[in-house]
């Protein structure tokens, strides 16, 4: 069979085949050859042959020179897996005559997903500081994530932030005794006052409170005009994004992993 079907004989090593237990030695010698260093041709006594298989294995001298076993084709294995010339299978911890628990553990450790677990969120995300650093913000986050058991949807979170901002504005206007029926300043203008203190907003601000920019001498800055929620989340999208980011941050701190099956 090996003579008549030389190309189909699985017992004969194919062309350019290097025995698996010799591949590490070959790969170690290749850089040396490329660098012009000393190269052992493998003919020293007692050392296994590391030269490639001759191209015509059907010759009788070829059969005498190379072993008949082997030649399983291209097998991608980790380097150093065949240093002892073992069988061409992955190196696993063979457990035969031990407890059932150890055998079950070995069975599942041999599954391909055992080494494919990775972090669900990168660890760098967990190093960031939380945007929900005030009690009112933490309470808002808690309600947004636990409402109804599974938390609010993104649309509900936007609505929820609107309600919070309205409550913040309304409480302040009532407490400061604004004139009933007087036009209320737009929230966006008040926010711009808080951020930059532009003149356009100061015209309206005079209807409710003394005009004052950031860093006024009396200490009544425009930051006091906006509450914690409005200052932290000027837009609805920023609140939604902050909630999502907080979820990722917590998942990173809890070291959640993901394993593809």
């Amino acid at each position, binding site marked *: 069979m090996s003579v008549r079907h030389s190309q189909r004989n699985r017992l004969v090593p194919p062309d350019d085949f290097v025995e698996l237990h010799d591949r590490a030695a070959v790969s170690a010698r290749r850089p040396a050859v490329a660098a012009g260093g000393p190269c052992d041709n493998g003919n020293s006594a007692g050392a296994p042959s590391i030269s490639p298989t001759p191209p015509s294995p059907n010759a009788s001298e070829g059969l005498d020179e190379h072993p008949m076993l082997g030649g399983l084709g291209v097998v991608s294995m980790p380097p150093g897996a065949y240093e002892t010339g073992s069988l061409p299978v992955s190196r696993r911890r063979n457990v035969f005559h031990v*407890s*059932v*628990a*150890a*055998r*079950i*553990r070995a*069975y*599942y450790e041999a*599954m391909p*997903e*055992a080494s494919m*677990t990775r972090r669900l969120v990168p660890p760098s995300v967990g190093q960031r500081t939380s945007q929900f650093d005030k009690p009112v913000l933490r309470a808002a986050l808690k309600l947004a994530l636990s409402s*109804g*058991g*599974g938390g609010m949807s993104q649309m509900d979170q936007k609505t929820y932030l609107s309600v919070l901002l309205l409550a913040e504005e309304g409480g302040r206007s009532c407490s400061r005794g604004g004139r009933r029926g007087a036009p209320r300043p737009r929230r966006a203008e008040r926010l711009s006052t808080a951020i930059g203190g532009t003149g356009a907003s100061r015209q309206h601000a005079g209807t409710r409170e003394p005009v004052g920019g950031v860093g006024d001498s009396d200490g009544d800055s425009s930051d006091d005009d906006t509450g914690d929620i409005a200052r932290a989340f000027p837009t609805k999208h920023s609140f939604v994004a902050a909630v999502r980011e907080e979820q990722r941050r917590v998942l990173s701190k809890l070291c959640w992993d993901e*394993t593809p*099956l």
Partner: protein
Amino acid sequence: MGMIQNAAHVSLWGEQLGMGPDGTRLRSEIMDSDLFLSEEATVRRRHGSFSFVLGVQLFVDEAVVSWSGAHYMYPIRARVVNVRDRAVQRVTVGYIPHVGKPVARTAPSRRRASDSRNAILQRCLAVLLRRFVGASQDGVPMTFPGQHQLTAVPRVVGLVADQLGERAVVCLMNNACEFFCSHCMVRRDVAGDSRGVGVASRDVTVLLDAQLEGAITRDRDPRPSLRRPLAMEHSALAFVPALGAVWGLSTDNKQLLNIISFDLLHVWKLGVVRMVAQRFPSFLHVACAGKDTRLGPVPDTLEALNLRAWEMGHLCVPSPTPPGYVFSDWVECTLRHAHGRLSRGVLLLCC
């Protein structure tokens, strides 16, 4: 570990309660149960007197998390029984993808879907318990403020699930099986009868050995005919339960089948209605004894019941919050099965 170190009130060792007025032993919760105390004795014998059992209860509740269809998966929750804070009950420790029914209604497609469902569950459990398994064998050093360095030895002391979840976790057949009890080898035809009293318990080692051999065989050749001996002899699936790798469940006291508990609220919520509905036609046939019911013959009555159930369907939508989210008190109780065996149960009471 983080849960127990951050808890305000922790109980490291269980103790046996005294006798009641009728002379029987009192039990109040899991920390004074026979299972926990026997595991504690084994752990202290193996790891020394400065060791304690870190008891974990697993909750497998196949309630799909997302309703929108974006994520078809269900959670696994865990509770550390040593933590006595009422604020922390159960923590979600993993999510398992849900494998739905196959589109094609053929036996091979059903078998493939069933195999995928069982394999994914076990492989997810194996990934989830990977560190737990090592810790259950060697223990984990832990230092509490003002105390010696102790060794925490994790043990699974409870698996709370309905019967389908229980059979899936321990890789036993769900239906069309001869031995439908997870604890003993009572046959289907004598269960609930006096002939079923005193049957032998399942041998955990033999069962796991057979399942492991069956799983290896199935990996090589998925033909169902090769699994038939396993099904006939043990009513088991050709999968090996990942929980069997945890120390103490298949070694020492071999508590794999004793940790099975059930959630009475869950059973009430999901199982009672179905069981009643299945037995209602027989009840009607016997109760009417050949006569008509108030709505006419028995088939007409059943049709009227089905119509009424369909009309009331919008009111019978189960709560979006699964039982795991409610604040609850856990009361351990001892229940006696119909075939005379004792098993532990968990009673869920809503505050």
